[in-house]
């Protein structure tokens, strides 16, 4: 679905992302984990071609991304930014319909079919009731879900999310997690960055652990995230503990050791 080989990139002469390789298949959820300034955001920008890469190759569905037009990329990869303030009072349904843009011909505006598609995307995430509300007047958690619905409306195989659970409360984080699970059920592949080392255990099929722009580990969460690797990356002693919830399901959590 998406394969990255020896990717190097950064700003000006500075290399922020150094020689990173990984791949994501259908139904995968890849968590990119690492401390502040490890190059997570830069990696996402390179994947979305917001900034040019220095070397390395990115393949989308087997095609070299350099050969693809921006519109073609947008039909394969969508981007879900962190929710932000919006100066103009768009309704939620207008926001979501914007996801159809890469499927429109030049000078064309969305049709009734596109509009219906947008409603279906809202329905998939169970937020149809927001459709006519103003995007500027809903809560942060709802905005994040709306941005996810927009990506579903864009109808891409790969969804790239920039810290989707940052600055959300506990319940809203869970709603976003559920939305991610819904997207995976639809057969999407998801790449997301996170600050929480426990998060990959609950949703990810793969983890890319970064430190100062280089790969520390890539693979299944339990294989990559060990107390040794986390300690190396974050510089503090960490333990992976297994706890069981009331349903007797075992769950892994990262804890700093005092």
């Amino acid at each position: 679905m998406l394969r990255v080989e020896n990717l190097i990139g950064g700003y000006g002469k500075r290399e922020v992302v150094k020689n990173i390789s990984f791949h994501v298949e259908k139904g995968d959820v890849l968590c990119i984990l690492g401390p502040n300034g490890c190059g997570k955001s830069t990696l996402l920008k390179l994947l979305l071609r917001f900034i040019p890469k220095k070397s390395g190759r990115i393949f989308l569905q087997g095609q070299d991304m350099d050969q693809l037009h921006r519109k073609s990329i947008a039909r394969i990869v969508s981007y879900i930014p962190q929710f932000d303030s919006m100066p103009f009072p768009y309704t939620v349904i207008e926001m979501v319909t914007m996801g159809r843009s890469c499927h429109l011909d030049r000078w064309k505006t969305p049709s009734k079919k596109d509009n219906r598609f947008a409603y279906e995307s809202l329905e998939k995430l169970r937020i149809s009731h927001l459709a006519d509300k103003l995007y500027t007047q809903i809560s942060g958690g709802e905005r994040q879900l709306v941005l996810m619905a927009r990506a579903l409306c864009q109808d891409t195989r790969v969804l790239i999310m920039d810290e989707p659970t940052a600055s959300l409360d506990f319940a809203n984080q869970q709603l976003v997690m559920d939305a991610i699970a819904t997207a995976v059920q639809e057969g999407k592949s998801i790449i997301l960055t996170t600050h929480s080392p426990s998060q990959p255990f609950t949703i990810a099929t793969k983890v890319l652990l970064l430190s100062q722009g280089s790969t520390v580990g890539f693979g299944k969460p339990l294989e990559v995230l060990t107390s040794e690797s986390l300690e190396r990356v974050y510089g503090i002693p960490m333990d992976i503990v297994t706890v069981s919830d009331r349903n007797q399901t075992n769950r892994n959590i990262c804890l700093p050791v005092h």
Partner: protein
Amino acid sequence: MDGLLKRSLIKKSVHRFKVQNFKSFKWLMLILLLISFLLIVSSLAMGFYHISIKELLMLLLYGEEAVTGENSSVFIIIKNIRMPRIIAAFTIGAGLSMAGAAYQGMFKNPLVSPDILGVSNGAGLGAALALTLGLSNFMVQVYAFVFGILVVSLAYFIGSHAKFGHDVSLVLAGSMLGALSSSFITLLKYIADPNDTLPAITFWLMGSLSKVTINSLLFSLIPMTLGCIIIYLLRWKLNLLTLGDEEAQAMGIDPKSTRLIAIAAATIISASAVCLGGLIGWVGLMIPHISRGIVGADYRRVLPIAALMGGSFLLLMDDLARSLSTMEIPLGVLTAVMGAPFFIVLIVKRTR
């Protein structure tokens, strides 16, 4: 079963929302068209030379032959003086509103006016220069147009070579060049002949449609219409530009080229508006705002509404300018008198 029920419910709400929305928008458009039409017709009857509604209707229905003999001057007044002026007022209002709406979206700021990149001051400098050189009215117009475009092009050139934020440096360069132009205007005013040139420059800068002729109208009308068409064609992409460059890119739009086209179109509109009627402020800031308040942020609806409202508003203002007192009130002053209080209300309301 549950899913099915839900789906049918949602389908119903989809249907209702769309029809309601579309219907009310269509009605709004119809009402605004009617208002615009009535305003245009009644403006034709308005003025020093009394033309009765009956004469006007005859003229509109049957053409020149309807008003022969002692009334033949009616036709000349309508054709050479009132018609060009009314068309100019309406198109300038509509054009500035569309350009303002476009600029606001491009710079993600609802408080931006069409002269954000210095087009008005640039055009003002061109006009002041032509007036100082004692050139003809036509050349004043040409100079204004060329200088307006020149200043924005220069701002764009500087902005696109800046090492930091493209938008910010573009706006900075624009206001810098605008300030530079306005200081040159001051210089020209200082050295201008106080008996004829200085009043001419001052009057021109205040904004007025009293000197509009068929020729000057035609010179501006074509580029202005072209600019409006281009902006209307960009209406969906303007929506995406308001999200910021990265999101627009991720949705398959090239923000840089889209913005360049929109800036070019909006600049052509503003420059032709300025060279036809001088500096007329506030319309391009105020009208898009009111339009958004009525139909929401979607440019597919904002642009046509803003065009009709802006056209009607400026026509009304111009009617007031030429009928409130025996002396013509500068149009730019009138729009400012209307606009400034509006802006204050806006600031107070925005903090709610």
